[in-house]
């Protein structure tokens, strides 16, 4: 019986962990725009052209 109690506590702990993770992701704005990223990935074919890459490239010469 005690095993079940421990399992329950563990599962609840994990579930709460994921819930707090979800709430954190919402708060940090990951769900603000669910449409544009789906379009953005289609234009990713042109590789290595993100802003950070371009600044790196500029520093080398």
């Amino acid at each position, binding site marked *: 019986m005690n095993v079940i109690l421990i399992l329950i506590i563990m599962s609840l702990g994990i579930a709460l962990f994921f819930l707090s993770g979800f709430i954190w992701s919402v708060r940090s704005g990951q*769900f603000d*725009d*669910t*449409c544009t990223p789906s*379009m953005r990935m289609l234009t990713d074919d*042109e590789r290595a*052209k993100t*802003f950070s890459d371009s600044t790196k490239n500029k520093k080398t010469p």
Partner: protein
Amino acid sequence: MSDVLNIALDAGAAGTTLKMGARDASVELVSCFHCGETCADTTCSSGEKAFCCQGCLIIHDLLTENGMQHFYDLSHYPGVRGKGAARREQWAFLDEPELQQRLLDFTDGTFSRVTFHLPTIHCIACVWLLENLFRLRPGIGNSQVNFLKREATICFEPQKISLSEVVTVLASIGYEPALTLGELDRRKPVSVRKRQWVQIGVAGFAFGNIMLFSLPTYLGLDSFNGPLLHCLFGYLSLAFALPVLVYSAGDYWKSALLSMRQRALTLDVPIVLGLVALYSQSVFEIVSGRGEGYLDSLVGLIFFLLCGRAFQQKTHDRMAFDRDYKSFFPLSVTRITANTTTAGHGAHGVTRPATEETVSLSQVAVGDRILLRNGELIPADSKLLQGAALIDYSFVTGESAPVAKSGGDYLYAGGKQTGAAIEVEIVKPVSQSYLTSLWNHEAFQKNRDDNFNTLTNRYSRRFTFIVITVAVSAALFWVLAGNPMRGLKAFTSVLIVACPCALALAAPFTLGTAQRMLARIGVFLRNGLVLERMAQVNSIVFDKTGTLTAANDTGISFQGAPLGKMEEQWIYSLVRHSTHPLSARLASHFQNDFSPEKVASFRETPGCGVEGWVSGREIKIGSRGWIESAKASLPSENNGDRQNAGPTVGSGVCVAIDGAIRGTFVLANSLRADTDCLFQKLSANYQLALLSGDNDSDRQRFSSLFGNDRVLRFNQTPLDKLNFIRDAHAKGATVMMVGDGLNDAGALKQSDVGVAVVEKIGTFSPASDVILEGTQVPRLFEILRFSQTSARIVRLSFGVSAAYNLVGISIAAAGILSPLICAVLMPISSLSVVLFACGLTRWVGRHLISNDEYRMMNGAESADVDSTGALLTPFVIRHSSFSKP
């Protein structure tokens, strides 16, 4: 025309292409490589690529220089038409610290972030281009686009680049930000959206866990658990359900409480009642140890409801995006291009040789000079340069007394010029959505109530009442029959299974879909409810000139002694101030040969003509009767020679100079193609009438067209037309008036459905309910039939929903259905009803848009709108009461 407009008006644009093609079939039509607009000439080109204008070429070169040709691979004709070089001074005001404080999201002196609303964002290539903005100019950092909101968040280093320069870069590639104060204050809903996500998350979390706890019960493993675990599971479930009930369902509570306070029954009341009943029953069962309660059902119900709401929100956003996008109705203005470009603003009074061109509203940029004739609307906030402005702000304020303005004064968008034409300089970007909102202003809603709306409202009020009554009586019945547990079950099941979705959603979704379908073929509706009224029309009144007859540039002849150059010059100077279709044709006839002179004391009498003083001469142009009645009849030489029977229908415009009649212009009017066909179809089902301000020289022709027993009235003043419609109303007819926006404005407003026909220059009349492109007039019958079909679909949806509810509620009232099954059934029914409504409307609409045009449209939009179309699949479940459109 910008790309946005191009796609929005795909069918319309196709129409113009065809027209142009017919005129000079020898010239092959070339589309601009950048924006897809048809190129008028081949002066702008780079290699093999053709461009419609210098602006597009500049953008193309700019992108190519920076290695961003990829832009053109992403979509067909992705660009937004360039408006020429953007001037930085125009945006200099953005560098004021106060304004920056309001605009910037964040700044620490070395790094700033700003969010702009860019109305021209429309496709995947736009997203790519704007997110690669840093490649165009050093100092700009990462940028991120929110496609649905059409917003771009841009980071930049204020030490390297000022905010005004950032905006200049944006404007130079065609994305001019919309900077209105309203725009600045509209940034709150993000927190609401976040809260909704958390609500779903909490509900989903609780749903999953409670399901796990109730699994043993479902599987019949109770004996294993023992009483301790049983009790523990029960209390844990209660603890999990509480935040769901209080927090996740919080919006339902709020809206139900609000409706109780207002003593109105909304659709949320039965839901909240059901939730309370379920929770209290569960508490009772668990605490007393009699059972497990229905917490799994309760939490599941809330979870499904919230998911449904999220999907509905998403669909709504899509529709709003699409609607915004499609609402670019065809408005054009006359732009004046001074040959010596933009030398300075000081030379107001000097008439420099300038050319006038008709451009669509979306092409008008800040700094442009435009000409506003009598009756034309001010499209954007602007500064008066020339002329005596007498502005009628009745569209905006409802105050009908015109306000006089003098040179240099600031004119607000939405006013209407009365009197001679004025020249203004645009100060703020044109906002189509503002004009659309003006169109939807309540002052122009017809007094006859929007009966469908009230019908829906009345039904839903009654629906809630009936549902609660049935639930209570079912509960009472089972309690009296000695089975209180079953009574409770029946009570909650009835409340939950009852689905008012069709009432709340069928009408807006069907009519919204239909409205979008119509916009594709050049029919623009004020709102979806207009469609509903169109379905009830039983008599149609037509105007003649410009409505049934098409204006073509050929066939203007003058009867009388030939006019001298000076006289023609005066006539041109006068007629260019008027928007009447005949004046517009005369003006465009002379336009290339003359430059306008100043006109003093210009006056336009609607339905009669125009008058004014040019170079000390009094010129009057208009109907013969009007000119003769104004002056004592003077010797006139021609009277009988105006009869030109035959295939063309002519309008006579009489010209008098200094009181003496000089002669008559005969403007050949040919009937629009297929008009006879249209009347054949219409006359079977509708009362038809023709009210024309012209003389009755065409009576013969039209009586054969309309049929002998129809009402044909000529020489009608605008007041006559208005009275005619009023009389028809008194006889109980539902009247649709088809006419132009200026002369028929009164009649358009008086009628149940006012249809304004626009040709090249449309006088925007908020009094109209429908804006119809001239080329679509012959399809009026199909359009009317489509409106009837849509109305039928709405009623059918009501029927489907009624049948579903009848069956569902009766089973639930019998106490057989478990609340969990109800919670699953309810969203499914909503979904099916909405899918049914939208799908059927789309299917019917596709038949309306003939296959050719449809293919053309798909070709133009395939890259962007089709991808959104898949998402648009209406997945909508119950409840719109607190998702504000």
